[in-house]
């Protein structure tokens, strides 16, 4: 799932930048731990550089990808790997706020950027 997300600042995929390495591991762990009763997925991602301004966008893309791919009952938690970003608290808080996420996705330009991030690399 996560491999195909493109880092908008770099033409390579997130996986090739090693960002998704931890995400993939965490995602695999999260999937293994999810049972029908809990329906939760927790994903951590590591931004390319600690001050990367694209961290929110990357996190949002991951969240959108998971929400679109999983059944509706799943709670999707996406946050920055602790200690890897200067504004991780602010970014995590935004990603956790479903009203803010919904409002962001109502912005057609931002939605287009997210969809580009999620489209497979040609």
């Amino acid at each position, binding site marked *: 799932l996560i491999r195909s997300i493109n880092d908008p600042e770099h033409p390579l995929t997130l996986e090739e930048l090693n960002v998704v390495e931890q995400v993939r591991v965490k995602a695999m762990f999260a999937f293994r731990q999810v049972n029908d009763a809990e329906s939760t997925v927790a994903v951590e991602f590591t931004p390319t550089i600690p001050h990367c301004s694209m961290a929110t966008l990357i996190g949002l893309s991951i969240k959108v990808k998971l929400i679109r791919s999983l059944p509706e009952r799943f709670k999707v938690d996406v946050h920055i790997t602790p200690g890897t970003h200067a504004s991780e608290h602010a970014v995590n*808080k935004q990603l956790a706020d479903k009203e803010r996420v919904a409002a962001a996705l109502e912005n057609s330009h931002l939605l287009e950027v997210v969809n580009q991030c999620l489209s497979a690399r040609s």
Partner: protein
Amino acid sequence: NLLATCSRDKSVWVWEVDEEEEYECVSVLNSHTQDVKHVVWHPNQELLASASYDDTVKLYHEEEDEWVCCATLEGHESTVWSVAFDRSGEVILSCLPGVACSGADPTWKCICNLSGFHTRTIYDVAWCHLTGALGTACGDDAIRVFEESSPTASQQPTFSLAAHVPRAHSQDVNCVAWNPREPGLLASCSDD
């Protein structure tokens, strides 16, 4: 007659309705630094409370014909999604995870903290003015009801969990409301 509205634009608006049922905005309050999630009126005074993404609850009243922010309740460590007054208006319940503050104008202090019951964000709290019960709407799809277990100690109330419906809905519960006339009747709504 007053109406209050709030928005993601960080503001709270107060409106007055006149005899012809025309609404006029009488104040725009920009006290919060982030999205305002909820506003609610005091049950019998012209006192307004708001809850915000900036982790605070603010109170407003009119001073010399102008609406001002008269108190800020801090201490939450994340977004306050909702706030409710009890029947007397002396106690405020805010969610995350359910801290009740009390006091007369202008000092409010935290008197009770209901932590450890909710596993995800609490989106709404409702205080039944008939029975004094508290209802909560949570992102773990559950609805919980709390009742005061020591009604005599009004300075340090304790609440206990009276009911817990784990799968009240199949997705996040966003709002709960008590029926104002029939005790024990609670309405809820959800992302489902």
